């Protein structure tokens, strides 16, 4: 292919947002806000919005498909995805039912991104044993792949239900499927698994110099080749704030991104973020915080260096004021994406 097709998306976990006067929004208000933002993103021509599932106080979205269903009914073109669906602590049959329903409502615009889940709240919540973290994922991804064929299921697993000649409804229309990708952090095993299942990979690159992930990109290509699997395009996901004033963008980032990372860090054993690390993440690392031109340059540079065809910007990290969230979405759609395509050259729209 001479013309590479790039895809630019927005991601959010439904971080509890703040009104412009600084008062916090409730979870319900934050959910309605995400729907409004998804509608805006559709009007602005952004390729995709993907929602993450969480089960803790900072985030409003625990059932992304329901939010996506609201968007399915009120948007025209934007792809509606998850980032991620924690398959390990879910029932693949029910996940299939939800997504084949969404497939119908969204006319095939749905996408699912599967992950093992770097947050682990869903395991005890749904009665799964965290010590089966790896095995649960292995088994369920295999079941998912089988469900996608649409054939009657004959299945026997260790952690999943036995199915005999069972069809799962609603069936996908003939010849159609649920676009599936796999989210990966830093595990070589996950990369190889994605290549094996012929799934495109999206790497969460949320800290450090993005180029340190180049070996993982190479590993994916190499694994695909080794196993005679298709060499699919890769994507990346990262946090960003795009405002016309650089200093303001940084201050919003310091206030909200740092606060969120530190809160999550308490549970994960991460150290609180230092100012010099924060500045590093903006200058050379993984935060896309600054003016539209600065962010566009950085996205283009890293997509090129890592051979990426998909970029997902996590917006609204830590909540942020409504006008800051909206400004990021508008700047991303109207200034950053066109500029990145220009910088990458020849990036004709599909």
């Amino acid at each position, binding site marked *: 292919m001479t013309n590479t097709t790039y895809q630019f998306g927005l991601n959010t976990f439904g971080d509890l947002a703040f009104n412009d006067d600084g008062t916090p929004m409730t979870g319900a208000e934050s959910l309605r806000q995400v729907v409004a933002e998804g509608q805006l993103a559709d009007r602005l021509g952004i390729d995709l919005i993907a929602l993450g599932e969480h089960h803790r106080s900072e985030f409003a979205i625990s059932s992304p498909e329901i939010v996506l269903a609201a968007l399915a009914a009120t948007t025209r073109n934007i792809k509606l995805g998850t980032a991620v669906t924690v398959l390990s602590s879910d029932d693949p049959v029910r996940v299939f039912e939800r997504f084949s329903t969404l497939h119908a409502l969204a006319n095939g615009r749905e996408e699912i991104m599967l992950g093992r889940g770097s947050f*682990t709240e869903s395991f005890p919540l749904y009665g799964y044993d965290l010590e089966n973290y790896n095995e649960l994922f292995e088994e369920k991804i295999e079941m998912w792949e089988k469900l996608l064929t649409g054939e009657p299921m004959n299945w026997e697993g260790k952690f999943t239900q036995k199915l005999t000649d069972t069809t799962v409804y609603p069936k996908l229309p003939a010849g159609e499927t649920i676009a599936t990708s796999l989210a990966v952090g830093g595990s070589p095993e996950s990369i190889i698994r994605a290549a094996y299942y012929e799934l495109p990979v999206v790497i969460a690159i949320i*800290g450090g*110099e993005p180029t340190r992930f180049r070996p993982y990109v190479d590993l994916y290509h190499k694994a695909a080749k080794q196993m005679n699997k298709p060499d699919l395009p890769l994507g990346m996901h990262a946090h960003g704030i795009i405002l016309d004033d650089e200093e303001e963008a940084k201050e919003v980032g310091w206030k909200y991104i740092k606060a969120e990372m530190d809160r999550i860090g308490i549970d994960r054993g991460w150290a609180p973020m230092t100012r010099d690390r924060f500045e590093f993440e903006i200058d050379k690392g993984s935060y896309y915080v600054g003016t539209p031109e600065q962010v566009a340059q950085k996205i283009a540079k890293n997509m090129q260096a890592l051979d990426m065809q998909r970029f997902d910007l996590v917006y609204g990290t830590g909540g942020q004021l409504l006008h800051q969230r909206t400004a990021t979405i508008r700047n991303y759609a109207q200034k950053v994406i066109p500029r990145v395509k220009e910088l990458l050259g020849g990036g004709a729209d599909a």
Partner: protein
Amino acid sequence: MPDITIGILGAGKLGSTLARLSMHAGFATLIASRRPVSQLKWVIDTLAPGAVTTTASELIAGADVIILAIPLSHYRDLDPDAFAGKTVLDATNYWVEVDGTVNEISTLTHSSSEVIQDWLPASKVAKAFNHMGYHDLEIEVDRKPTVPRAMAYATDHDEIRPVVEQVVSRFGFAPLDLGPLRFGLLLEPGSPLFGEAIPTDEFRDKLAAIYTSPFGQKVIAARGGQIQ
């Protein structure tokens, strides 16, 4: 000091990261996991080019310093005889996802590296590289901060302190000696020091205040004055 060969046991997120750091530091580096050598080799040739993929037993025989980057609960698979006389850096932590929901290995009175030292009585065990996440290990070296980040370690063997410090500093960190191995408890999950990637003076400040933290209070309650 003659140059030493580093052996990294385990090739997951932590092991492959440590292999890159070790190569970067210019050490001869061996790596092994439970995967067949041929399979692991093509992963490592991409993720940590230059590191030599081998079997666990050849690694143990050939390395001067062995870094444990395996799930903690797999420590019983280590052959104490093969490890006799070796310097072992224990980078493992109790991790629910891989080690199980109930920690039946270590306690506040017997930290995980002490358990490993007991299992490998003829080896010289130090706790090191455990209190920083694998992402931070690499990022905090790559980004060349003006002040290197503190990497605390603990061991009962004074004779290995120089080699531990050499490895830690050449990997890109500032070694910080916590003293005997039992103090390694202060670096384990649950402690305010766990996860820290900060300069030495800040690390010392946090260390000085540790017994006023809820974790420190629990340690005192469990160990009496014995740990201090």
